[in-house]
């Protein structure tokens, strides 16, 4: 509801907004600063921190000491793997529910949503046990499957709302012109669906990257992604502010950038289309 306002009001609004934004963003800014300091400087007073020398040492140390890149690549594989697997299963499902709805479609959609509401802790032990029996505890395979399953309802719902926006008339026109199902999917639907699929992909990579219940409980040294690697810093030995900052900055940067691109999809994806 943009309306004309006086300059005076605009100055006031801008000032308050910027103040709030700076306060909210400050913790992230601050760990970026600390990550470029020595451990000794990182624990000084804020002014001393800002005026002390800058260094890349912490980044080097983090990478050398703790297989940082092993955990980073675990995160990448788990987040992208689970999202792709989810998309492969979800696209046909969402497509058919959006374009060939039946009496049961609504019920199926609602039921899928209800599986998302299942509190993870309620099935923690069964999953733990199943993982041990199948020999996939602390494996990337296991996490790819679990994260795919917990995000599948969101993926299907997002795709469904995007597909719903593709006008059905276009499909009917194509059918009249004699297009078969294959060419219908390939030449008409796919090009129109790609933006929706891309946004879904993006949001779900973010969600999977940041998932921190199953990744903490089902991994140890081998398959641990960044979420649980960083958690190992919760029992520190000695000075570690700069190193923790460097590890954190590296863990959040890629996803923060992706997140900024996915603002709009975030609303749609996490409200299941209830707010658009």
């Amino acid at each position, binding site marked *: 509801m943009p309306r004309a306002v006086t300059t005076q009001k605009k100055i006031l609004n801008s000032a308050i907004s910027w103040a709030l934004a700076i306060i909210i963003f400050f913790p992230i800014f601050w760990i970026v600063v600390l990550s470029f300091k020595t451990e000794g400087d990182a624990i000084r007073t804020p002014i001393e921190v800002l005026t002390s020398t800058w260094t890349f040492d912490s980044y080097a140390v983090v990478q050398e000491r703790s297989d940082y890149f092993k955990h980073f690549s675990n995160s990448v594989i788990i987040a992208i793997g689970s999202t792709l697997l989810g998309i492969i299963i979800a696209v046909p499902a969402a497509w058919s529910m959006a374009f060939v709805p039946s009496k049961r479609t609504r019920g199926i959609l609602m039921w899928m949503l209800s599986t998302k509401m299942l509190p993870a802790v309620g099935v923690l032990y069964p999953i733990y046990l199943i993982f041990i029996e199948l020999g996939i505890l602390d494996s990337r395979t296991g996490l790819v499957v679990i994260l795919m399953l917990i995000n599948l309802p969101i993926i299907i719902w997002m795709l469904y709302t995007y597909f719903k926006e593709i006008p059905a008339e276009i499909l009917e026109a194509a059918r009249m012109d004699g297009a078969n199902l294959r060419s219908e999917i390939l030449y008409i639907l796919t090009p129109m669906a790609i933006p929706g699929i891309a946004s879904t992909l993006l949001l779900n990579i973010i969600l999977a990257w940041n998932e921190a219940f199953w990744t903490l409980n089902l991994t140890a040294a081998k398959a641990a992604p960044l979420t649980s690697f960083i958690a190992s810093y919760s029992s520190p030995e000695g000075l570690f502010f700069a190193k923790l900052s460097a590890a954190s900055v590296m863990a*959040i940067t890629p996803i923060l950038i992706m997140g900024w691109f996915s603002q709009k999809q975030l609303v749609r994806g996490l409200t299941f289309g209830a707010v658009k």
Partner: protein
Amino acid sequence: MSTKHSRSLARIMVAPAVFALLVWMIIPLSMTLYFSFKKYLPLRGGDLGWVGFENYTRFISSSSFWPAVATTMIIVGGVLIITVVLGTLIALLLDQPIWGQGIVRIMIIAPFFIMPTVSGLIWKNMFMDPTNGFLAHIWRAFGAEPIQWLSHASLPSLIMIISWQWLPFATLILLTAVQSLDSEQLEAAEMDGAKPIRRFFHIILPHLARAITVVILIQTIFLLSIFAEIFVTTAGAFGTKTLTYLIFQRVLESQNVGLGSAGGVYAIILANIVAIFLMRIVGKNLDR
């Protein structure tokens, strides 16, 4: 419009998704139910037989149950109040013309994308550490004794950390809702001399009611299962044991699977009560 052929094909296309979610629901859930009626201690004798509803009554009558319920309610309630109130105000503010709106927006939503273990640890160490933390330095600069945040003010600290993470979510959704508000209606009210406060309560708030409800419901579902933030900060100490955390400890730390499973069933029931309301709103939207 659809042929029989495409109908049966459509069914086949939904099948993998339905099958995957069905397996995901039924197997672990029935196992949890099964364990909840057993005395089952994997490290101390294993399966010790059926005990009926004993786990359910023991879980509720244990001395840590009601404190855990209270902690859960305080954290969920506190975070909801802070995020909804601040989120509404920030959404209204961002809807006004301001300089650098894009950057302000990006800065405000950033915390949502920080992984929970990172935000827990950032706050615990770099900000709330009573000796070297940022807040301790500020307190000392004003000659005050630094607060032992996570041990002496554990719940407010956790509420602060979690609100920081969830404020962007509330703000974004409420901003989307504010932007769909009809400006003519507001202008008409302004011309009729309605004061800003009256405009807020009579036009803006009713318009936002649905979005606020959605924010509350979705956040409640996620907040009920908050885990990583507690895991890396207090590990359940200093009165921060939520229901989720209590069940986690019963199941994995003390390996009392029967008891933990009964707790899990309670958690599932609780989440479902919230879910019913959310599903009703989402379902209504599906028909439009």
